[in-house]
């Protein structure tokens, strides 16, 4: 493992160190089953989701407690999103969308804790999430609509001469979807965390420390916003792709 490290006039920058996957115990090589910090923080986010949605609602009260109303708000928001975008028949896939939203939201949010590891900044993780959506949606589209699904690329409202060109563009944009879908999430989280690290390094200089700390506070506040918005955007794009699979007509 190469740690990025260079001294510049007494300042030490380790902006990318926080993304290194390390084994939890010992220092050996990482095989597929090794418990790592990535595993730990993914498990923590899953546990947080379960704590909110299962233990938070165990009262099943008609008048909800605080945690239950948060769980209900999340449920209502995601459900409304799925229903608004994909229509009634999309509600069958609501648990899948809800799983994605909750996992990404909590993985993002827990990564904001100091000394934590952010699973969603790893391209491997977000690529798996995005390609799962991509394959799921593509297979669902063909199963539901058969060859009709290809109508997604053949824009029948365009002039006949333009259609082949548009088909190529649509095809490319369709296959770029999982790439942009995953890199958007990973890039946003990675960028925010790296910027915070860089500002943190400046805090070693006494003259710059106040500015640096203020900047970290500002970036942190922005990151809290970004964390939520990226989870929301990932989910809403999943819904949009799902809509394309269910209703391929433009």
């Amino acid at each position, binding site marked *: 493992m190469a740690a990025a490290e260079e001294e510049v006039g007494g300042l030490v920058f380790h902006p990318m160190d926080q993304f290194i996957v390390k084994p939890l115990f010992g220092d050996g090589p990482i095989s597929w089953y090794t418990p790592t910090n990535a595993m730990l923080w993914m498990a923590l986010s899953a546990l947080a989701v379960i704590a909110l949605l299962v233990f938070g609602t165990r009262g099943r009260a008609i008048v909800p407690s605080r945690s239950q109303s948060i769980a209900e708000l999340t449920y209502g928001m995601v459900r409304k999103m799925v229903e608004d975008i994909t229509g009634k028949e999309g509600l069958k896939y609501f648990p899948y969308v809800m799983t994605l939203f909750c996992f990404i939201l909590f993985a993002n949010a827990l990564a904001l804790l100091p000394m934590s590891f952010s699973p969603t900044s790893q391209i491997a993780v977000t690529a798996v999430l995005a390609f799962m959506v991509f394959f799921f949606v593509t297979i669902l589209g063909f199963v539901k609509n058969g060859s009709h699904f290809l109508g997604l690329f053949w824009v029948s409202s365009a002039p006949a001469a333009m259609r082949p060109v548009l088909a190529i563009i649509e095809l490319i944009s369709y296959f770029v979807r999982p790439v942009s879908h995953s*890199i*958007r999430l990973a*890039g946003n989280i990675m960028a925010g965390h790296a910027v915070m690290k860089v500002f943190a390094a400046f805090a070693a200089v006494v003259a710059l420390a106040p500015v640096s700390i203020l900047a970290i506070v500002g970036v942190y506040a922005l990151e809290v916003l970004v964390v939520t918005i990226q989870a929301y*955007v990932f989910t*809403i794009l999943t819904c949009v792709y799902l809509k394309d699979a269910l209703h391929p007509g433009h």
Partner: protein
Amino acid sequence: MENLGQLGQYLGAGLACIGMAGAAVGVGNVAGNYLAGALRNPSAAASQTATLFIGMAFAEALGIFSFLVALLLLFAV
């Protein structure tokens, strides 16, 4: 003369960051137009927040791509 390759990397990374300006313009454009439309017809604004976020996400993703290109130039080439 091996420094030349590194020079190219750094220059390329710096140039890639210009792409972020484009993303900034794009996000600002989306948000500004949304606000203008929302002030003109506030009753329709609430139903379009989802579209706003999708538009912002698309615009912003391109800025992230340029950031990624910079990172790749620095670390992965």
